[in-house]
């Protein structure tokens, strides 16, 4: 890599070389049977260069031909792709060395433990199709650039998902992210079983506006709309609904959203640098309901005249884009148990359908529940099918009744459960 960088610097002036390798293993139990084991080994190199305000790029699976990479990068400059001012400058970033290797346990032992878990669970949910999924892996990244940045990050990750699928389809599932291979907490599995059983009864309620208790694991589907709007690209392109609103209190004072790659809750997913070699740091998006500003990558830092926020991410074969990979919502003051005892009628969506479609930039959502649950005076009375929730995040997040003090790492972020005053609910009669 050093040699490639040297050649690229001599030819182009400003250059950046990246390397990435990852090994992953997945073990899958479907309907109570060990279905398969998959392993993956991947790697790639990329070269980015800047000349005369243009960005050139080349990628490869290996470094067998440096000259090919250099020629590709040269050819790509003709496309006149907009470039950042420069590549990242050297700066100290946080270090998060992995605490253990997730690959130490042989796959045979992982399978034994998983089947023992299966044997414990199956008698408790005979009606369910039981699915267990493990994913573990290690990665290594290195980035060098002509400014003297030399960043290496090694990491590992373990995730598990347990799901109880209803005979008619749809499932109650939960995801766990772990610093190392460890037991899935039995009390949390028992809680999941409780929800599954409650969902064996189907219930219907009239349409209208209802309070909704959003689980942490799916909250990212709504929060994603804030992320899209707070992206500096949306600012630079003139399409963000947040333009001109920095400092304005738009949402509930109970709501604080940051991108925080250093938070303990992220465990092995913490990052000291982004994929452009910029040190990461907590980036506030909403503080007590007030919009704080936009996050960027190096290109959009230049275009908006702001300093880089350490949120430039990319695949080895793609361009850097601004992304919040560590969204974090500050916890509230209510226990989850207390929220689940909310008097009256409350809808709990467990899984959403269609959250990726619609007018995300505007903050709209209209999602199917697959499933959803109905709580009445603290009791989960049944499953809501053929039902939808709709609204706009700028409206619903301005009327938050409570947040749980417990937080969970789900898809999209580190979030509490949130009780919203109301959303529009529709269900087939």
């Amino acid at each position, binding site marked *: 890599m050093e040699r490639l960088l040297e050649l690229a610097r001599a030819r182009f002036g400003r250059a950046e070389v990246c390397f990435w390798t990852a090994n992953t293993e997945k073990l899958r139990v*479907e*309907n109570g049977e*060990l*279905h*398969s*084991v*998959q*392993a*993956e*080994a*991947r*790697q*790639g190199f990329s070269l980015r260069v800047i000349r005369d305000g243009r960005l050139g790029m080349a990628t*490869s*699976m290996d470094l067998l031909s440096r000259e090919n990479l250099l020629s*590709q990068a040269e*050819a790509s400059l*003709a*496309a*006149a*792709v*907009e470039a950042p001012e420069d590549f990242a400058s050297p700066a100290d970033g946080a270090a998060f060395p992995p605490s253990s290797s997730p690959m130490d346990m042989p*796959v*045979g032992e992982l399978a034994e433990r998983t089947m023992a878990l299966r044997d414990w669970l199956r008698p408790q949910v005979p009606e369910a*199709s039981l699915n267990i999924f493990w994913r573990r892996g290690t990665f290594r990244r290195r980035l060098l650039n002509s400014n003297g940045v030399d960043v290496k990050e090694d990491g590992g990750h373990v995730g598990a998902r347990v799901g109880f699928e209803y*005979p*008619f*389809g*749809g*499932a109650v599932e939960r995801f766990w992210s772990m610093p190392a291979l460890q037991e899935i907490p039995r009390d949390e599995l028992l809680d999941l079983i409780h929800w599954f059983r409650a969902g064996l009864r189907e219930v219907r309620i009239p*349409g*209208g506006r209802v309070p909704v208790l959003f689980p942490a694991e799916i909250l990212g589907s709504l929060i994603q709309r804030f992320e899209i709007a707070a992206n500096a690209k949306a600012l630079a*392109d*003139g*399409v*963000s*609904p947040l333009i001109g609103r920095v400092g304005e209190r738009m949402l509930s004072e109970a709501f604080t959203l940051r991108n925080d790659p250093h938070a303990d809750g992220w465990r092995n997913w913490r990052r000291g640098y982004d994929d452009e070699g910029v040190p990461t740091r907590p980036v506030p998006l909403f503080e007590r309901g007030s919009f704080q500003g936009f996050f960027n990558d190096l290109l959009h830092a230049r275009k908006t005249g702001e300093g880089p926020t350490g949120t430039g991410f990319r695949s080895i074969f*793609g361009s850097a884009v601004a992304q919040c990979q560590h969204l974090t919502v500050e916890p509230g003051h209510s226990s989850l148990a207390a929220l689940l005892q909310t008097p009256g009628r409350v809808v709990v969506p467990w899984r959403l*359908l*269609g959250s*990726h*479609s*619609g*007018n995300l*930039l*505007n903050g*709209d959502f*209209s*999602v*199917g529940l*697959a*499933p959803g649950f109905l709580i009445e005076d603290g009791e989960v009375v049944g499953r809501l*099918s*053929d*039902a*939808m929730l*709709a609204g706009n995040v700028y409206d619903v997040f301005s009327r938050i009744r409570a947040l749980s003090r417990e937080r969970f790492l789900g898809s999209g972020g580190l979030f509490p459960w949130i009780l919203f005053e109301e959303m*529009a609910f*529709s*269900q087939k009669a």
Partner: protein
Amino acid sequence: MLQHLESLLGRVTADYADLRFEEVDETSITVTSGRVMAANVTTKRGYVLRVLRQGGWAEVQFTAESDFDWAVGQALAAADVVARHRARSFRMAPVPAVRATLPRRVQEDPARVSLAEKIALVQEYGQLCGGHPKIARTQLSYFEQARTRRFVNSEGSAIEEPIVLNRISGVVNARDGSLVQNASAVVGGGQGFQVLRGRHEEFERLRGLAVDLLAAEPMTGGTWDCVLDNRLTGTFTHEAFGHYSEADIIEDLPELRQRLSIGARLGSDILNVVSDSTGSDHVGHYVYDDEGVRVRRVPLIRNGILAGRLHSRRTAAEFGDEPTGHAVAEDYRYCPIVRMGTVFVEPGTTPVEELFERLGNGVYLCGSRGGQTAGENFTFGAQHGYRIRNGRKEELVRDLNISGNLFHTLMNIEAVGNDFLLSEFGGCGKGQTNFRSNHGGPHMLVRNLIVGGRS
């Protein structure tokens, strides 16, 4: 190359093994409001090894041939682990060995079109979408993928099949204060670059639609009678039923599998749904799937009755059916899973104008924003709609997401139009994105759809 892959595979001691090697050339261009934001040309490659030993199944993906021996060790060890813990062995339905090298099937090869010309075409279409004070951004993208798939297995199959796809997609954002609306379009296919030329009309209409949506009323949620346009019929079919035709979705769901037995009634007599990737004139076309099985036309619903399923070799053995050639992987990074090919509702006999007369009062849903399926429930989004009163198209409405249930909603299809249109590009995200899962059909009249919206 096929011979070399066969010699590698010969080093694997298993009851069955296959090795797929792919080289993938991709070009992606993004132009935002006339400025080139990305123009990437990449070549990637990788291998997928699958083994079956003593009834245990394992899969390994790797990018370097130097990792082959590692991959074999991993695969065999993993297969042994699986075999130890399974009550039932994996089985694969038998298929004949195939030895074939297929030609590259394009009229105007995109590889011969310069990057500069591709950028110029995207910019030309982008200019058509802008030029209005309320248009805040135009974002057009070009994507091209040329895959050369090489597949060998321990049964003697050796197949090389290239697949070339390209598309131009565009999203136009209109803005009025803090209200933002968008309209999108996509053109493309697998027949060559020529399908992208002369498509100005598709992109020019986006400007007017995006601006009009700023003034449109949000939809009122509830149960509505609807006419779906061709694109939405395709999405509806894909989400409402298509995934349930994939045998791996229902194989472990006993109640759903029982209710979806061949011969079950799912819709009225007028409903006929087919999966057909054999035709070479659309993006979904291929000859052999990623298990070396020739794809065939599969009637899925005939006169409202469930008539067929889509299979891999493994699910075909599980169900006691013939393999259908629908084991497909996105590219070298993935193992094949059961995927829909080109799925569509066959045209009916009702003139489109009559659908609106019969609708009376309701909503005309247009354009697709994708969808999702879980269990027997599904949802899909429309780009925009029109209120219909007394059979006449009236005001534009927006924010339309529709929800339904497999067993109720198909029965609510009251009439099928006599027109027909297929989408030009696919994009099903069942764990991996399959660009060749496209869909379409005629206009359809559907009663009692749940539409999310303000109450």
